[in-house]
Each structure stands twice: as structure tokens, then as C-alpha cells.
């Protein structure tokens, strides 16, 4: 965690120094603040599924599906003046979230009840959800969303960008969930050793189901945020977000085999990656360098983790000699 803060500060200073006019401006920081939330929420969703030792590859598909359905409902009820009654906006959002929960439920059933490996299960659901979205819209995107909705994605709430506030609220809720509730402790234990959890009479299947449902719910909220910010919903948006989300959670200190992770780490890592992207942009690097950076960071952090874990294990066994 501490290293992460250092990295964040390092990147901040680096880019601010090399590209002061473009990077270190309030405009840039504000625009970052609008783009961070959707990625952060998606990353928190991945973190949840990773904590139990699994993974949810369908987050982007779910977020697109939710965004599409909500957008469709909203644009369907556009009246002549180009606005939509607030009722329908709220209803559309709620239905979008419901879609997310249902998708999460499908994942839950596959992973927790049918015991399908999470990688395979979420690859399949990703294909399915994505496929349904493409089928329903014929591959086209929905645009022209009502103004009130756009104000959410591009407006402010007590001075802070609304999506940013939403992210903080969600992050706090999830952090509370995993650190202060029984469910959270069970999640950590199951991720550490599912067998031992079963032998401790923990209802592992129920807990895993909850994580995928909540993950689906978070993904759908992210989708709504994206739609609101970009004023469009498409079945193919954000295909590269999966790699980004996984880089973020790994950088944020989540153990890919389960059992350990913090929400604050994930949020901080999101900011680091966003600064990196923004910095590359400011320095006029072509956008694909960012892709290379993501891939390299992912592998570098994993290697580093393996090395550190080896050292940590030897230290704790060393302690046992003293007791």
C-alpha cells in the first residue's frame, strides 16, 4: 500500500514536470476526475470476484448490456422537447441495475452452484451477454440520451464531479462490506482456502453467489456512468477495460488467488493508471503505448509479488522458531 502511494506520487511528479502545461492543469485533473470513476467501479467489481479466488471477466459485457437497456428505455420515452420525464430516467437506471444483478446471478449459478471454473464461466457469460447486446441492437449504439441524464455524468455535486462522488460512496460501501461485516470476513476466508472454509461450516456457495451478484450490480452502475458521460451506449465499448481493470486490481494489492485486497488500494491504483494514460497523452505518446504499459505493468507487478511473497513466507516461518 505504501509502495503504491509512492508510485502515485512519483508518476504525478514525473508527468507534471515533463508536461506542465498540459498535464498539471485543473482542466486535466478535472477531466481525469470524470473518467476515473467508471474504471474504478469496474475494478472494484473485479476485486470482489478475485477476493474469493475467482475472476469476473464479464464485467464489461454486463456494463454495456445495462447501459444499452437503460439507454434504450430512456430514448424510447423522449418527448418532442428532447427531454425525458424523470420517472423514466429513474426507471431506466433501476432496470439497468436490475440487468446487472440478473447477469451477476447467472455468473453466480455457474460458479457457485454448478462449480464451473470462474475463468471459463465468465468467459462464456461475457460472450453471451455481449452477444445478446449485439443481437438486440444489431451492433449499433444508442445515442442521443436525454439531457437530464447527461447532467449526471458531466455535472457536479457540491463542487465534485457527480460520478466521482458516486465512486466514493460505492467504494466506501464496498469497503465497509468487506471489512466490517461477517460476509466480508467469509469472503476473505473462502478466498484464502475454500476447502477450509467448507470444513468450518461456512456457507461458501452463498457467499460466492453474493460476490458475483454484487459484482454484476457494480458493473451495471459503471455502465450507467459511462453512458451518462459519453452520451452513448454501445455493445462494444471498453473492450480494453478488462485488461485495465485487472492491471489495476493487481497493482492495487489484490491477490489474484484470493484472500487479500483493499478497496482503497484499488481506487488509488485506478488513479495511478489514469494519470499514466493522461500523462502519455500530454506527452503525445501514441495511445498504444498505454496498452504496452498496461501489459508490462501487469506482468511486472505479478513478478514482484511472487518475489515478495517468497520473502514473506520465509519471514513468518522464521518467527515460528522463536515461539
Amino acid at each position, binding site marked *: 500500500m505504501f509502495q503504491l502511494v509512492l508510485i502515485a506520487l512519483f508518476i504525478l511528479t514525473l508527468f507534471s514536470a515533463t508536461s506542465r502545461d498540459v498535464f498539471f492543469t485543473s482542466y486535466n485533473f478535472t477531466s481525469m476526475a470524470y473518467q476515473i470513476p467508471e474504471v474504478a467501479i469496474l475494478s472494484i467489481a473485479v476485486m470482489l470476484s478475485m477476493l474469493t479466488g475467482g475472476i469476473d471477466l464479464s464485467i464489461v459485457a454486463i456494463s454495456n448490456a445495462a447501459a444499452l437497456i437503460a439507454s434504450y428505455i430512456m430514448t424510447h420515452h423522449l418527448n418532442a422537447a428532447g427531454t425525458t420525464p424523470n420517472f423514466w430516467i429513474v426507471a431506466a437506471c433501476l432496470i439497468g441495475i436490475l440487468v446487472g444483478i440478473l447477469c451477476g446471478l447467472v455468473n453466480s449459478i455457474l460458479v457457485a452452484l454448478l462449480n464451473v471454473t470462474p*475463468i471459463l464461466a465468465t468467459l462464456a457469460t461475457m460472450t453471451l451477454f455481449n452477444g445478446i447486446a449485439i443481437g438486440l441492437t444489431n451492433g449499433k449504439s444508442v445515442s442521443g440520451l436525454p439531457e437530464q441524464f447527461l447532467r449526471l455524468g458531466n455535472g457536479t455535486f457540491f463542487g465534485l464531479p457527480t460520478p466521482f462522488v458516486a465512486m466514493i460512496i460505492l467504494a466506501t460501501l464496498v469497503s465497509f462490506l468487506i471489512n466490517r461485516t461477517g460476509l466480508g470476513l467469509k469472503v476473505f476466508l473462502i478466498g484464502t482456502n475454500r476447502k477450509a472454509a467448507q470444513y468450518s461450516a461456512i456457507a461458501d456457495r452463498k457467499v460466492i453467489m453474493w460476490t458475483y451478484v454484487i459484482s454484476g450490480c457494480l458493473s451495471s452502475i459503471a455502465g450507467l456512468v459511462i453512458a451518462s458521460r459519453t452520451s452513448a451506449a454501445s455493445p462494444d465499448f471498453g473492450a480494453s477495460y478488462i485488461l485495465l481493470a485487472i492491471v489495476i486490481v493487481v497493482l492495487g494489492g489484490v491477490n489474484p488467488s484470493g484472500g487479500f485486497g483493499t478497496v482503497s488500494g484499488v481506487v488509488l491504483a485506478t488513479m495511478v493508471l489514469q494519470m499514466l494514460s493522461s500523462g502519455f497523452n500530454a506527452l503525445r505518446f501514441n495511445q498504444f503505448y498505454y496498452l504496452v504499459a498496461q501489459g508490462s505493468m501487469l506482468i511486472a507487478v505479478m513478478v514482484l509479488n511472487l518475489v515478495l511473497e517468497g520473502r514473506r513466507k520465509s519471514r513468518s516461518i522464521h518467527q515460528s522458531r522463536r515461539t
Partner: protein
Amino acid sequence: MNFKRLFRRSETILIFAIIVLSSIIGIKSPSFLSIASIFDIFRSSIVQLIFALGVLIVIVSGGIDISFPTIGIFSGYTAVVLMQRLELNPNSLIVPLVASVIIGVALGAVNALVIAGFGIPTLIATLGTAGIFRGCMLSFVGITFISEIPVGLDNFATADLIRIESPTAPLARLHILIIPITLLTIGISFLLRRTMFGRSVYALGGGSESARRLGISTRRVQAKIYMLVGGLSGFAGILFVSLQRKASPYDLAGSELDVIAAVVLGGASIMGGYGTVFGTVLGVLLINLIKGNLILLGVSSSWQRAAVGVLLLIGITVQAITESKKVRKRRVSTNEEVVA
């Protein structure tokens, strides 16, 4: 011949499914039941089959690779670009083929380094390398869409072994690739079943620690696996460029799902240790049968991906249910073995 066991095998179910599906399509559209269709299915399956053979090897070893389409297009696209930049003989077929395979092996070596060398879990490792490969390709090789590919490659797209023209029936073309692809498929099957390397792949899937204790050098086997898959992907990539008659660095993205679906449907277990070439071939056939004939089945083509998703879902659900039945049957507990 144990008939009960024969019936339970996933290959049998697949053959059954293929026959049933073909019949349904045939009834709805009799023009389907023609030689032209069979040849067409082969043509549309070529690239996927080569990728699938590679993915099969990885999955049997207990891993998963999602970087293979990226390696494929990187190799194919770069081969074409190199031919143009270095002004190599545009009539040659061998040059781009060899170049693409070599590039594929080199990229596969990166995977080998990360997975066998550093021991990083395969999904995350290949997710990362895919990003690096794609980013490097688009940054350093180019982003231009090349519609005029070298003549040799272009002509190869229409290199048919059998060509049946008839005024009443659609053109039936069997591409010459059927010979090398069949040989390749038989070769991989032989590799997996009859060589030490192949059995080591299965051993790895059965338990890497147990395999290691037997004296199998697991890291070396893993490295070979990913380099072999890289080479196969490079081969598939250049064939894709040729058959499509264009080279675009944005192609093939997202196609990993179809290939993995085909391999899993073909009976390979994602946990490793199980899977056959025959099953993979059937899986590829089934996927292409459905994808290519959705319209004939009354479904618009924009539902292709959803169809693959449904198939994959059915496949893994069936696998999961049979697995849990097997566990219940095997009522001798195996967690008695306490290792001191």
C-alpha cells in the same frame, strides 16, 4: 469395445449434435446438403482449427492462453509489412509463411518466459502479453489497413484443390490447404498421443508437482508448449491474411472466445489433463456449422456471438454436471492422503 463408455464420450455427443443440426439446416434449406457447403465449412474453419489445436495443447497442460489471436495477427501483419518494406519477392508464398511462423514462435517465447520462467498464472500472463503484443504492433509495426497484399499470398486464397463448377449448383471449392491442414492435425494428434512431449503435456495437466517428481522437466515442457502455440498462431495468422486477401492489424481481435469455445465443447477440460484432437476438430466444425448457417436456421447474423455464447454455456454446464456425477460415483474419498 466398451459401448457404454463410447456413448458417454463427448465426441459422440458432438457427432450426434452435428448430425442433428445438419439435418435441421438441411430440411430448412436443401441447398445446404451439397458438396459446396461441406467445402465451404472447411474453408471457414481453417484458421480457427489451427488456433484451436494450439489452444488444445495449452488447455490440456492445465493453462489457458488468450494471446493467441494477437500473436496471429501480429505475425501475419508484420510478415506482410516486412515483405513490403524489405521489398522481398512478392510472388513467394514460403517467405511470408516462414516469417510469420518465426515471429509467432518468438512471441510465444515471450509467453514462455513469463509463464515457465517466472511462474505467473497463465490467464493473467497471457492477458498481459496480449496487451503488450497488441500495443507494440499498433505502435511500431503500423496501423494501416493493407488491401494490396503480396501477390503470392493473394493468389493463394484461390488455390483450390478441387473446383466443381455447375450451372445449377453453387460453386464448390475445396482449398488446397486441406492437405497440409489434415497432415498438421494428424501430426498434432500423434504428437499428443505418441511422443514423450505429448504425454508430458498430459502429465502437466494431471498434476505439475507429480509430473515433476517423475522426472519430467516441467518448465521446459511449458516453454515448448507456448513456443509451439506461438508458431501455430503465426501460421494461422498468415493464412488468415491470405484467405481474407487483406491485412489489417485490427482483425482477429475478440476471436479467442470462439476458439476456446470450440476446444471446450470438444471435450477438453479447463482444469487440464483431458482433451483430444478429434474432439477439437468436432468442436470447431460445430461452431462453424452454427455460425455460418444461422440465417438458414432463421436467426439473423447479428446473433452469432450470442449463439456461440449459448453453445459454450451449454457445453460447460453439461461438463459441470457430468463432473459432479462422476465425483459422486467415485465414492472412495481421496482426501485420506495426509502428507507429513
